[in-house]
């Protein structure tokens, strides 16, 4: 068998790494505008979904968003928007960020004008399990948040808790949502993400 | 100190790579036909984990994380190279496995032959990459903690594959339909073991 010198091997790998890095960087750079546009459209779609506009075409997403929302100075360091919801009322868009089982989860909550009631939410995740944790971005789970309140009957801030069916008896129905069965950790992640996000705007 | 031990025990039994996360299945199913080879592979996997996870931990801490490069100087504090994690982790793993292969070919030829293609496949064993990726998520305070985690994960994998090999050796004496013998029944049993193991998830 031919014997390769150490220099050859080193140069071989280095050359390969350089070629790959260059080609990938060029591709990435070239595709960047389209990618960025897609990401922005995705964000617009999410916020629109949380505001009650369920079926917007991706191509129109950014235009629709621009016509309905405007940025407002936020009390925390995330960006906040005021948006005209599908039902005509004004809502406040709160960004959310958290950790799921396998990676980051995030989303937007649209709150009523007085910041006490959820009008809609929209969740996204990077790598949750399809059929389990990934269900947080499905309509059924998201719609279960509509109308839920951040404050309990005595006016205390409780956020909206995500608890397994049958375990949340002590919490008022308006302050809780059913967790996804089989996706304990992802559900807990959502619970914490909401608490953190809402806590920030409370201050 | 107890925390390090805690992490170790947890990763052997509760966060078991095979039964809780279903990682490393290919080699697990293919090399569990007899206990001796299974044990050998288990040791190899443990060794690779125990070396690559701490190395990747240090690389992540001082090179990749957001703000990791601040030891180089103030202006590097905002650099975030974490998008390179995947490829650098894999590079480290590939290097270690190549090393292991060379050592095994020279000093443990019987095991080397028995493992066949599954020795280089350790490089793409999802349990190994999974170990490094989980380590990133878990934010261990020191490299010793990450080592404890890695060793525990490896031994957990080893226990799983050896136990399974023992079961399969016994299976040779039972009356299984011809087409189901070997691989078929192996998958089904692993599935059943997995279901049983889910009981641990509540801890």
């Amino acid at each position, binding site marked *: 068998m031919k014997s390769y010198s150490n220099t050859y091997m080193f140069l071989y790998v280095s050359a390969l790494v350089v070629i790959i890095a260059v080609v990938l960087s060029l591709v990435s750079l070239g595709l960047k505008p*389209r990618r960025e546009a897609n990401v922005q459209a995705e964000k617009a779609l999410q916020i629109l979904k949380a505001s009650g506009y369920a079926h917007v075409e991706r191509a129109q997403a950014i235009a629709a968003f621009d016509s309905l929302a405007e940025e407002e100075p936020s009390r925390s360091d995330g960006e906040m928007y005021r948006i005209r919801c599908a039902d005509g009322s004004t809502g406040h868009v709160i960004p959310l960020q958290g950790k799921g089982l396998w990676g980051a989860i995030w989303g937007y909550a649209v709150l009523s004008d007085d910041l006490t009631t959820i009008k809609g939410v929209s969740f996204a995740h990077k790598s949750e399990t399809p059929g389990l944790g990934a269900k947080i971005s499905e309509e059924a789970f998201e719609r279960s948040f509509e109308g839920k309140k951040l404050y309990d009957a005595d006016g205390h801030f409780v956020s909206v808790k995500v608890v397994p069916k049958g375990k949340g008896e002590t919490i008022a129905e308006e302050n809780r949502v059913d967790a996804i069965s089989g996706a304990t950790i992802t559900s807990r992640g959502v619970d914490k993400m909401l608490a953190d996000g809402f806590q920030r705007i409370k201050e | 100190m107890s925390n390090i031990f805690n992490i170790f025990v947890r990763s052997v039994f509760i966060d078991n790579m095979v039964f809780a996360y279903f990682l490393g*299945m*290919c080699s697990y199913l293919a090399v569990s036909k007899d206990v001796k080879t299974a044990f050998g592979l288990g040791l190899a996997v443990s060794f690779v984990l125990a070396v690559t996870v701490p190395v990747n931990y240090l690389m992540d801490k001082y090179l990749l994380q957001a703000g990791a490069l601040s030891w180089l100087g103030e202006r590097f504090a905002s650099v975030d190279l974490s998008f390179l994690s995947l490829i650098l982790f894999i*590079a480290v793993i590939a290097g270690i496995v190549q090393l292991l292969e060379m050592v095994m070919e020279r000093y443990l030829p019987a095991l080397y032959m028995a493992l066949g293609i599954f020795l280089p496949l350790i490089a*793409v064993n999802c349990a190994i990459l999974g170990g490094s990726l989980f380590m990133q998520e878990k934010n261990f305070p020191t490299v010793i903690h990450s080592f404890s985690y890695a060793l525990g994960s490896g031994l957990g994998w080893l226990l799983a594959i050896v136990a399974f090999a023992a079961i399969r050796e016994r299976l040779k004496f039972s009356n299984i*339909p011809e087409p189901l013998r070997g691989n078929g029944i192996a998958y*089904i049993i692993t599935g059943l073991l997995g279901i049983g193991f889910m009981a641990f998830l509540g801890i």
Partner: protein
Amino acid sequence: MKKYLGPLSKDNPILVQTLGVCSALAVTAQMKPAVVMALSVTVVCAFSNLIISLLRNTIPPRIRIIVQLLVVSFFVILVDQLLQAMLYDVSKILSVFVGLIITNCIIMGRLEAFALSHKPLPSLVDGVMNGLGYGFVLVVVAFFRELLGSGTLWNHPVVPASWYAAGYMNNGLMILPPMALILVGVMIWVNNSLTS
């Protein structure tokens, strides 16, 4: 020619070679990710096989694993970038599994077993066929898991509402990974019966 049909049944990567199992567990709870994964693996396997085969006489054995991984990672990231720009919805499903494709033992396995010792064109075909064999198993498992576990197919509800009202319940166990293992076991049973 017959030899190339091997990976579809007699030499199926998942059912016979025991490769690519991890991803078969992770992505088969629904059909859509299963199909995206199957196509991506096929593309990456085919092209990685091609490149490594072209380079096969120049690669020093001591560093071949690193070289293989570099080539595979290149194609996976390339596919991911192209999808993010062109087919964003599909890329959302895929980016999760990018790591899983790079470590997919089928790709590495075929590189070691075939591409390193065969000419480029047969290697390309081998990559495609193994990808398809893998995809076939994935789609079948995903079909059953989604249908029985969520009552949907390709995210469209299939089980009539009247059935649910009558007491039919989705089999939650199907969504969990161990069921995928059991389903593959059954497929092996069928495959072995048909091929022996």
